[in-house]
């Protein structure tokens, strides 16, 4: 995990991928293609005193658990996505894609 994170130096940002609804793995069967937007990238630059302190505390074994760096996560989600499945029924998914990303 650490090695991978170190390799991708790009800061946290929004990316897109064209996938079929079946590929989403949510149990729906549909060949319809949708645009999946997600957040990815590093958050090193966004470290606050909180993160730095937490890291030091962990290093000094003063705290056992705790995530010592901010995460790249959606700040808001895209509008609903509707599709027709292979059995000719419509479904609507809420909060499927990210709209805006940030380090939290």
């Amino acid at each position: 995990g650490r090695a991978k994170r170190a390799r991708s130096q790009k800061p946290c940002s929004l990316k897109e991928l064209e996938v079929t609804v079946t590929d989403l793995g949510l149990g729906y069967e549909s060949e319809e293609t949708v645009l999946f937007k997600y957040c990815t990238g590093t958050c090193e630059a966004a470290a606050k005193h909180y993160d730095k302190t937490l890291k030091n505390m962990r290093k000094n074994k003063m705290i056992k658990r705790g995530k010592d760096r901010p995460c790249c996560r959606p700040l808001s989600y895209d509008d609903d996505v509707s599709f027709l499945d292979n059995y000719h029924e419509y479904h609507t998914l809420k909060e499927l894609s990210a709209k805006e990303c940030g380090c939290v």
Partner: protein
Amino acid sequence: MIFANILCILLFVEEILHSLAGHSSLSGPGGHDWRTPVDCVKANEQCGADSTCSSRYRTLRQCLAGKDRNTLLTNKECQAALEVLQESPLYGCRCKRGMKKELQCLQIYWSIHLGLTDGEEFYEASPYEPVTFRLASIVSVMDLNSSKENHCLDAAKACNLDENCMNLRSQYISTCTRLVTSTDSCNRRKCHKALRQFFDRIPSEYTYRLLFCSCRTEACAQRRRQTIVPSCSYEDKEKLNCLVLRRLCRYDHLCRSRLADFHKNCQMTFQTRTQCPNDNYQACLSSYSGLIGFDITPNYIDANISSITISPWCTCKGSGNGEEDCERFLKDFRENRCLKNAIQAFDNGIYVNVSPKKPSVPETEPPNNSQKTQESTKATIDSNSDNVSVPPTCINIQEKGPKFNMSKEHIFCLPQTDIPMLPSDHSGQESNSPFNEKSHSNRIHSTSALLAISFLTLKLVL
């Protein structure tokens, strides 16, 4: 005697000159000629600024309120008001689909035209401006690298990858599939509204592909039939009589206008090769999609891949003595060759490159596709035009506007009749295209100049 004759001729010439001058002054002010009719909202503003016009318009509206046409015409004041208004910009005004204040525009249109026509006419004049852009422009922006399997699936993909299309599509789907808990059914009114927004706001390059995709499998045809979420927007517990449905539609200015537009642009005619008015497929498809989201919403009745049948959700049972009218009304949907040819031509236009064997051909004339070149795939609908005797007219799209992002060599060759025609009184061959129309009016000018010269010469002789 000779003198009297000359006098006669002079008077005659003068009269002609007067009438010509009168003609040119009619189209003069405001720079609006018949090709771009004023929209009714603007015309109403113009009329409001003119005291005579506005008072007559008020009178006419009072005349029409609660009275039928015959009582209107027996009242002298009403008749006078109508005559004055026929000279005003209000008379020839039109509306645009999806324009700002569309409903207001249509209300103004019908406020005059209901007084001019008998409300019970089978077909009514359309309040919409003629559709002038071509199917060619739509097809050219579509990608041809699509799966051979399911064109309707490709259409859904294209829409999903466009933000606006995806948002409005999801909006109507979620609205039309949401069940109201108390009644355990959907909210049809909201569903219709969401569908109208989708078909009015999203460019036809997306919406037509979803509506008119060609299918070779039943799964595909099912998907095509499901496009408008028929369980909510189309089907109902029982079928109304079609004439009742039409009457309901005519109570609503928007529905009435869309229906009139459909009848104008999809009316089957035997005078053209495609059986569509002016061979204009685009206009027919456009007014068909304009009916979706109203009482009269049409759809594919089944997922049959060998033949397309379209109908509104109504029946001719219980028509009584109106059965003939009812059948005629229903036939304009179910057995309309113009509509079917337009739908099939749209399919063929897109996928002519992908599928060498066509899944279906227009029912009237199987087109000869043996000598397909790359150009003809781009020239769209006119897979069929190869074997037509009408000399083609070539239009360089580049000249028509910068919004088509294409290189110069894309020249569209269409049969002459494919250039949209606009309503005009002179039905000579020259008036077939707007381009020729210009020369037509030029000729009037030169004739009037000639007459003026001869008039002067005569005067000099005297």
